[in-house]
């Protein structure tokens, strides 16, 4: 299997603000790849460079095997992008949006019309297809936006924070659509700040923090990095007051419990659970922060 994305030593700055500080990333073809990071980590900048919307300052960026600056047209023919802001035309109807984009993707008028009808029903927009997009709800706009990305088959689909601002139901239905894409053999690259989303959807995750990839792997691998089992200490109200990570062995759990027994009241209750993506994320970004603090001190 080839590489969908290959990035080496990628730098990007806006004025004096360095957004991407030497990113390296390889993503194999197929499946869902999640780029997980907080606001301002550089996710959108990164996706825009991959999609050819922004130029990198330095570094090698190859998408579907093509160089994003040298082989722009080939890259455009290999990708589609659904951005953070629903990129749909408010003044046109849903069907008109899809037909126009069909034509702009090289379909004949008849093909564009047929494809628009298909997508409208596939994304459950039949009742709204003839209405102006300006009247759509947030969830409907996102569905139309995603449909706009799928008019012609592209091997790589970028989704920049596809579910931001959606209610739970719309989010679930979008997740189903995303999984359906992956099952057709399309490589889906999505960014998200929701750990749950990455955990649920992605086969592989890269954690981006302050312009660098701080960790990558399968959700299970990332969780394994911070330990196997987590001990939660509960307070009198039954809320988690403290968490301790262990490597899952009896010795490690016993050690942590002995330590707790000395500090916590004797009738305190504990619970054992698998680590969540939240634990992983906090552990990874905290260690990245303390590393950069150390670097700062050395300098």
């Amino acid at each position: 299997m080839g590489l969908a994305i290959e990035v080496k030593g990628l730098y990007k700055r806006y004025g004096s603000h360095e957004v991407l500080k030497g990113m390296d990333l390889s993503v194999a073809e197929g499946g869902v790849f999640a780029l997980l990071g907080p606001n301002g980590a550089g996710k959108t900048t990164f996706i825009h460079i991959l999609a050819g919307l922004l130029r990198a300052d330095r570094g090698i960026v190859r998408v579907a095997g093509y160089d994003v600056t040298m082989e722009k047209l080939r890259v455009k023919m290999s990708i589609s992008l659904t951005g953070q802001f629903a990129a749909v035309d408010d003044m046109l109807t849903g069907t008109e949006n899809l037909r126009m984009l069909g034509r702009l993707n090289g379909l004949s008028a008849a093909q564009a019309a047929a494809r628009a009808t298909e997508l409208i029903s596939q994304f459950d927009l039949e009742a709204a297809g003839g209405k102006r997009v300006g009247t759509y709800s947030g969830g409907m706009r996102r569905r139309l936006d995603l449909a706009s990305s799928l008019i012609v088959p592209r091997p790589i689909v970028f989704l920049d924070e596809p579910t931001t601002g959606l209610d739970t139901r719309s989010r679930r239905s979008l997740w189903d659509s995303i999984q359906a894409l992956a099952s057709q053999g399309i490589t889906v690259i999505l960014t998200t700040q929701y750990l749950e989303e990455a955990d649920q959807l992605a086969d592989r995750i890269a954690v981006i923090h302050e312009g660098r990839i701080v960790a990558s792997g399968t959700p299970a691998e990332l969780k394994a990095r911070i330990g196997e089992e987590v001990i939660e200490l509960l307070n009198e109200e039954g809320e988690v007051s403290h968490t301790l990570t262990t490597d899952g062995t009896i010795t490690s759990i016993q050690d942590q419990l002995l330590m707790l027994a000395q500090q916590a009241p004797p009738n305190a209750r504990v619970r054992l659970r698998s680590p969540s993506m939240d634990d992983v994320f906090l552990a990874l970004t905290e260690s990245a922060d303390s590393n950069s603090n150390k670097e700062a001190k050395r300098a």
Partner: protein
Amino acid sequence: MTKPAYEGKQPSFFTTNAEFIVRSIRHSLRNVETMIMAIVLPVMLMLLFTYVFGGAIDTSGNYVNYVVPGIILLCAGFGSSSTAVDVASDMKNGIIDRFRTLPIHSWCLMTGHVTASLLRNLLATGIVILAALLVGFTPHADVWEWLAALGIISLFILAITWLYAAIGLVAGSPAAASGYGFALLFLPYLSSAFVATDTMPSWLQGVAEHQPITPVIETIRSLLLGGAADEHAWFAIGWCLLILIGAVIWCTWLYNRRAGRR
């Protein structure tokens, strides 16, 4: 892959432009308020100048003939100014990112806006001329003179629309675009549109006689009402082409610079 039946390819240059033109025309038709303003305002101004100020400016009672060419240009200015807002909205909205990831020259988006503006303005010009005929405008022109006048008007609309498109790209937001664009709308007042320039103070005469609007107005005036157009016509064509070429180059440069960063 989903349906190999829908194989994507690069659309032709013609298709790309046609799609963007259709899109912009749909926008214009659905933006009823803007459309009405672009027609009603110049007609109101014409009535205002003919019936309220006209008597004081030209006591012979023939002012309507003098003012119509200026009103036509004023109308074109108003009508084109919404291009700045349309372009700025497209740049701010995420849709520009979608267009830029398609296998097309997304710059054709601009041709769409400009073509729609041209059609919109020719319609508005037609309505203004009809209204003028109703209030006593008496042109003396044969078919060729009418066509020549239409040609000059179209060239002026194109030039000013491209300029507004560039303003739309410079402005950070649709509101700012509307504000910047407003400044240009004052140019017709500082020309021979409403009063002969020799009635102005001498320093203003210099400005009024040498700005692009005056030769365009004088050309239309002589084509529609009789009189020699030759020298004015060359200046009018020269100015319009200069603005047109300059604005297109400026637009292209701005587009390539601007579209990448929102």
